[in-house]
């Protein structure tokens, strides 16, 4: 078979796997998403924001009236795609295509690297693609909603070009390419950047490049990475810190937050019903065909590629978190990153160690491809071919991806379109307390995602892993008005000064008693509701705010006073 034909087969097969993996997304990529958690909603908002005319590092249309810093956006790569596609492709369709085609690109890159740098032969090299792009972390990214992590051909490409660059005949061009792939990893997400940096460390340690005469490839790669890394760190620390609650906002112990974001040993085998109900859909399933072939490596290969073994071990050890847990409890063996707890809240940059498992997926996938290649050279191919089918079954059984997806319509409620077009919207929901941080974030992020349909400014802060401080303050102030009658008269004037034109309430989220009180007080304060809808899967009631004379300065001063009074 010609090389071109092989590539076409590879892409076709990976596309088929991707369609099944994310089913039913392919049936309506612009109309539904398949995530179970809520990270996708803020990404949809980001894509829409980047596709708008005032796209930049500060977005004026959210966190109204002060605007929102985008310095800590989830993914600069996906933001760039949205920016390039403005006017051509909706945020919803772009997100669907990222889920459908991202893993295909990632798998193809892993397959090529396994073939070109580790000697895996087609079709066994397909195992590298399956093992990297369609196993536990891919399912986790898809179901949690941080789907930008699915577009990551950069990590395998970095592995391939860095190995080349650090060989005796390596060239500065290869060093530059390695730096480019590292940069794209960092811009895909901060966690992918950390994983890429660890990969660089492992490859450098194994290359013994310091024994070479020509240091230019290493210097080219190292210098570029340092410059880009410092620029990224500066951007990250420059602003945006207030977007997040401190870690202690959710848990008293930063270590516990990290443990919740780690892989548990049981999930390395397969998913369980508890995974989606209580563990944010985090699954580390490595794939039994990958594990088995990897374990057989010492028996099959004359020389086991130790670089891959170290990559797998490092990724696995880091992903298991500060305390290695069997299944959300038990064992509690201290892991190497326990030391990060000493940093306290500053360790929040590493709240999700599970993302380091991408390294193990990549290493194990390539190792499995190499072992299968050697086996096929010694045993009748007909006996080895089922391995490919088994790996495909692994993708379905161990990750459970096609059984765990949901068909969630993107359709936004029509009520927002009835709000005054030139003024902002503030959404009101109850205080969920510490039990309901997920529900609070879902409600907040859903409102952000709906902005693409109504295009009105919004009080919600849309970036971050907790509800933003500004959004929380406004909600607390409005909710306080229900039981502090002195605030009733202040509400219309204050909202008007801040430029809000409508209050949209989610009455079903309140208890029956508070629902009646909230709607009653808002009616008393702002007049009868001007709209009530139940389409788009939500029951919403809207109150229109009377227009008052104001300016940006007056609005921002009022906002700051409320923030100070209701932190």
């Amino acid at each position, binding site marked *: 078979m010609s090389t071109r034909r092989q590539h076409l087969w590879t892409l076709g097969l990976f596309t088929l796997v991707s369609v099944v993996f994310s089913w039913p997304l392919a049936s309506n990529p612009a109309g539904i998403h398949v995530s179970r958690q809520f990270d996708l909603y803020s990404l949809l908002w980001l894509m829409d924001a980047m596709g708008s005319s005032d796209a930049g590092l500060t977005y004026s249309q959210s966190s109204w009236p002060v605007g929102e810093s985008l310095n800590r956006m989830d993914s600069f790569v996906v933001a760039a795609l949205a920016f390039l596609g403005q006017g051509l492709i909706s945020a919803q369709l772009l997100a669907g295509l990222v889920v459908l085609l991202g893993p295909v690109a990632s798998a193809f890159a892993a397959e090529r690297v396994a073939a070109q740098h580790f000697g895996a032969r087609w079709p066994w090299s397909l195992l590298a693609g399956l093992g990297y792009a369609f196993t536990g972390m891919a399912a986790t990214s898809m179901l949690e909603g941080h789907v930008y992590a699915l577009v990551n051909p950069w990590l395998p490409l970095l592995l391939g070009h860095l190995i080349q660059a650090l060989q005796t005949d390596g060239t500065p061009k290869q060093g530059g390419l390695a730096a480019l792939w590292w940069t794209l990893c960092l811009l895909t997400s901060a966690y992918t950047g950390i994983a890429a940096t660890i990969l660089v460390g492992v490859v450098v340690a194994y290359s013994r490049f310091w024994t070479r005469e020509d240091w230019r490839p290493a210097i080219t790669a190292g210098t570029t990475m340092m410059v880009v890394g410092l620029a990224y760190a500066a951007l990250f620390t420059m602003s945006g810190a207030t977007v997040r609650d401190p870690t202690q906002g959710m848990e008293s112990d930063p270590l516990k937050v990290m443990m919740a974001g780690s892989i548990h040993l049981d999930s390395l085998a397969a998913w369980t019903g508890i995974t989606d109900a209580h563990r944010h859909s985090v699954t580390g399933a490595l794939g039994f065909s990958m594990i088995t072939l990897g374990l057989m490596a010492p028996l099959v290969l004359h020389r086991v590629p130790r670089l891959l073994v170290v990559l797998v071990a490092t990724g696995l050890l880091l992903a298991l978190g500060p305390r290695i847990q069997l299944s959300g409890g038990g064992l509690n063996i201290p892991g190497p990153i326990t030391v990060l707890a000493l940093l306290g809240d500053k360790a929040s940059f590493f709240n999700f160690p599970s993302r380091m498992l991408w390294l193990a997926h990549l290493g194990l996938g390539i190792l499995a491809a190499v072992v299968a290649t050697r086996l096929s050279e010694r045993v009748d191919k007909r006996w080895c071919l089922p391995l490919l089918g088994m790996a495909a079954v692994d993708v379905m059984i161990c990750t459970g991806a096609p059984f765990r997806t949901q068909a969630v319509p993107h359709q936004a409620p029509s009520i927002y379109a009835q709000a005054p077009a030139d003024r902002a919207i503030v959404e009101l929901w109850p205080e969920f307390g510490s039990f309901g941080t997920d529900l609070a974030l879902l409600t907040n992020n859903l409102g952000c995602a709906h902005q693409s349909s109504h295009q009105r400014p919004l009080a919600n802060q849309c970036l971050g892993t907790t509800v933003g401080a500004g959004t929380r303050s406004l909600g607390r102030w409005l909710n306080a008005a229900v039981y502090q009658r002195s605030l009733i008269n202040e509400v219309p004037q204050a909202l008007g000064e801040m430029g809000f034109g409508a209050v949209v309430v989610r009455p079903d*989220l309140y208890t029956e008693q508070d629902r009646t009180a909230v709607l009653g007080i808002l009616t008393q304060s702002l007049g009868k509701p001007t709209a009530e809808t139940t389409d788009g899967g939500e029951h919403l009631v809207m109150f229109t705010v009377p227009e008052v004379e104001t300016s940006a300065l007056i609005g921002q001063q009022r906002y700051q006073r409320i923030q100070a009074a209701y932190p």
Partner: protein
Amino acid sequence: MNAIGRILVLLTALIAVSSSALAADDQVIDLQVSMPSRGAYVALDVEVTRLGSRHTVRLRDDGGVPNDLPHDGIWNGRMTGDYSRTISVRMFGHRSDGTQDLLYSGIERTEDARHVLVGWRIMATGDGHTAVRTPLSYPGNVAEMFAALPLITGFGWGLFLLLYVGMLVRLSRKDQGEE
């Protein structure tokens, strides 16, 4: 038409057929409660607020609800209607003396437009009973076992793979004269 073309045509046909099948009208929400402690309650009601309207769903364990196995300790109820992303829920247990206990209240996410299963388990507390949310799947009355079913299946599959690859390795070493 070459092989790639055939795959693409098949894929398109599969997507088209499945898409039309998926264009369901109403969202189905199944409510399921595991009540191992028989006799505590004679009836279970779930009060659901969905899109601003309140409904009471009487749960049954007599096989009268789709997917219900009669008298297995799993009480079922079903409601269908327009798509709702969340529902507010209160569950009441009715005692034989006519009194009722509030066993659970909360907001449940029901984002899948096709079918949603919301499950609880009733547990005895020091002075009464309470219901806790639990992942469930049909059919059965031991919730935790079925929640772990994919894991158990996974290990079985893993063992099969280990044996198969072990056999291949054995064959390869035989062909090489156990070098």
